[in-house]
């Protein structure tokens, strides 16, 4: 069998670290100054998915008639198929009884009975702030749990590396969402948590190999060991990323408009997560001076 060529990943540690740093900084700046585009789940308000049954009605007509209803700030956007729109506004359900019914009646008066409400989501301010809180707690808790798990299974240096990689992924994914003004809703929180799990998974596979090689190859520096380990696990990394991306692409393209945001976040996360397990997690092991001693200490205990 022919020996595979070893790709010198470690040679690019520095340049990619700078690249990541720039990405993270940009993301943070976006998150601070532009912020995230929260959906009704987290901001409160009402969302109505409308299907128009008459092709001649344009989006601006629809926008106009919704603006006439005195609902506050109304946004009307295309959603999936051609005549489907999502209408969002801040006014909440509980203020008025028959609130949705009234909108329907007014709309029939204005544009005629040529539409149907396919979905209505209305979230009060109390619930939305609770949902936001529990979303943040969920992400925080999962990061904490992973940190502890890696700490138990490896040495603390590995734990730091893995967590840094995951933070990197979460921040960049959210930064992208801020940059593109994509909506953050409950399913995005689910996506972020899954990204955390996936990125961790990817990092752990490489770290396992690093640990194994540290034990086996006593005369080689950590710098080279990470490079060998990345190369040894590379085909697995690629295959798993490809199959996961195939599945996600399938959701993104065929899974309907509701899952678009979720699958997009996941696709982004898988790409960034795969990159970070190579270029964030490993350089940190080097910076933290991981050596054979680090591992052998563990063996004694």
């Amino acid at each position: 069998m022919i020996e595979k060529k070893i790709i010198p990943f470690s040679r690019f540690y520095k340049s990619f670290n700078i690249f990541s740093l720039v990405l993270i900084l940009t993301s943070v700046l976006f998150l601070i100054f532009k912020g995230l585009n929260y959906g009704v789940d987290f901001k409160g308000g009402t969302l109505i998915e409308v299907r128009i049954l008459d092709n001649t009605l344009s989006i601006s007509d629809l926008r106009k008639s919704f603006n006439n209803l005195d609902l506050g700030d109304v946004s009307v956007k295309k959603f999936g198929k051609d005549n489907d729109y999502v209408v969002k506004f801040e006014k909440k359900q509980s203020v008025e009884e028959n609130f949705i019914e009234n909108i329907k009646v007014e709309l029939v008066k204005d544009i005629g009975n040529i539409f149907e409400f396919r979905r209505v989501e209305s979230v009060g301010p109390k619930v939305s702030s609770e949902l936001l809180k529990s979303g943040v707690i969920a992400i925080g808790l999962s990061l904490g749990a992973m940190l502890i798990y890696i700490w138990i299974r490896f040495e603390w240096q590995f734990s730091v590396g893995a967590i840094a990689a995951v933070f990197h992924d979460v921040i960049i994914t959210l930064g992208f969402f801020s940059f593109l003004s994509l909506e953050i809703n409950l399913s995005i929180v689910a996506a972020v948590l899954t990204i955390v799990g996936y990125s961790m998974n990817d990092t752990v596979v490489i770290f396992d190999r690093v640990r194994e090689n540290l034990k086996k190859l006593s005369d080689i520096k950590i710098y080279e060991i990470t490079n060998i380990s990345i190369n040894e696990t590379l085909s697995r990394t690629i295959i798993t990323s490809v199959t996961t991306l195939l599945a996600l692409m399938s959701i993104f393209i065929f899974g309907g408009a509701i899952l678009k945001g979720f699958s997009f976040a996941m696709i982004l996360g898988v790409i960034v997560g795969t990159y970070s397990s190579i270029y964030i997690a490993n350089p940190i092991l080097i910076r933290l001076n991981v050596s054979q001693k680090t591992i052998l200490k563990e063996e004694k205990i």
Partner: protein
Amino acid sequence: MLYFSKLKILLVLIFTIIFSYFSISNFTKFDDNFFSRNINLGLDLQGGSYLLLEIDNSPVIIQKLQNKLSSLKKFFKDKNIRSTNWKIVDNKKISFEIDNTSLEEVLSLLKDKESVINPYYQRFKTHEFNVEETKVSSSNNIELQFSKYGLVQLKSSSQEQAIEIVRRRVDEIGTNEPNILKRGSDRILVELPGLDNPDRIKTLLGKTANLTFRFITQNESESFGTEKLSFQDETEEAVVSKRIILSGDNLIDAQPRMDNQSNQTVVTFNLDRVGAKKFSKATSTGVGKRLAIILDGKIISAPNIREPIIGGSGQITGDFTFQTATDLALLLRSGALPAPMKIIEERTVGPDLGQDSINAGVLSLIIGFVLVICFMIIKYRIFGFIANITLISNLLLLIGILTLFEATLTLPGIAGIILTVGMAVDANVLIFERIKEEIKSENNKIIAFDNGYLKSKSTILDANITTLIAAIILFILGSGPVKGFALTLGVGILTTLFSVYFVARLLTAIYVIKNKNKEQLI
């Protein structure tokens, strides 16, 4: 790792077949007696309404404080303790004053564990009310405020009552299989599958339905013991007495009727024995007066009493359509809520959007599945085939387990299944790649395969546990459809591990032992 006992093979086979049967039974139309469970479709897939109601307990608290105030006052009076300046402060405290001589007695009456007037909850180590005393010049000011558990007790009993009323109202409308659950201490979750338009039910749930019969007084202005209320259509106002002649509690039935004489829709009602007695007494003495029928602080109508009504039944006229009369009768039959409620979250999905979501979900599942399978065949040939069989058994197991527990499948849940398809091959890939490495240094194929399995084990466990942690946390903290995602993702990891270590390993073992002399196995 490649050795399997006959018994183990049999067990793996039986296990896989049973769960495959469970999952396939979802798609067969015939009912069988042996296994009749199905996966439930979430509201986002079958269409329906999710409503979260919040009970506003503040009127209940005020009511309870007023009751407590009167009973405390009477209690002290009976014990010959002089108390003054009774009042309710900020709608949350009872306050009164007492002189120095009786201070100790009052405090012991309120703070003893055997206190009758301020019950002590052994379980929570606290009284119903917290008692605070402060010196005010020559006398003592005492303040009573609900303790934390006193408040919990109050909230849970009002939630208990409200959920019962909500259930009755939802049942009366006759939606299929509603799901009504407590949430926290003051919330009720109502899930109404298949309901396209929840507006009517929302209106009905939003009504407290507190019905009272009270006399309209002759005076034009408000005075002590009376209040000004407006009619339902907001056109008129009337001053009514605060004394309640009859309340909705005494109603045993209410029905919408067409009144033959006036050709109007009315609501007829029947009273229980106590109610009938009260009603006949009041209508006998009040002939000539106007009796206001008041629902939730609005006068529905105020007919003149022409003659005493003795039979214990009567009718409510008003400007009803048949629909509004039906709804009023329904509200009266199901009883009044202990406190007003508000809808604080609503999610409604139309049935055709649900069907579209199912179609899109299934389509993307099939395409994702086929893509992954093709990729694996191209990459690993015969072992790709093994990985694919593993993947199929994994899917059957996953759906089988969801069926066994009658779990709820949501759209994000389907996404979780697809994601499982993508990530499940990871474990097999890790093993195969490891075997490839082992084969380079080991001539005995069987040992190489064995080592491949052994050496990749801890990596696979670590890698899967991290994802499992994320799924568990999401399942605990997530809500609604997202919980469905966490469920399929989490169960998917477990079935992945089973199918990789039993199904795939078994197939690999059979293949490798048969072909151990082949030059290039993997």
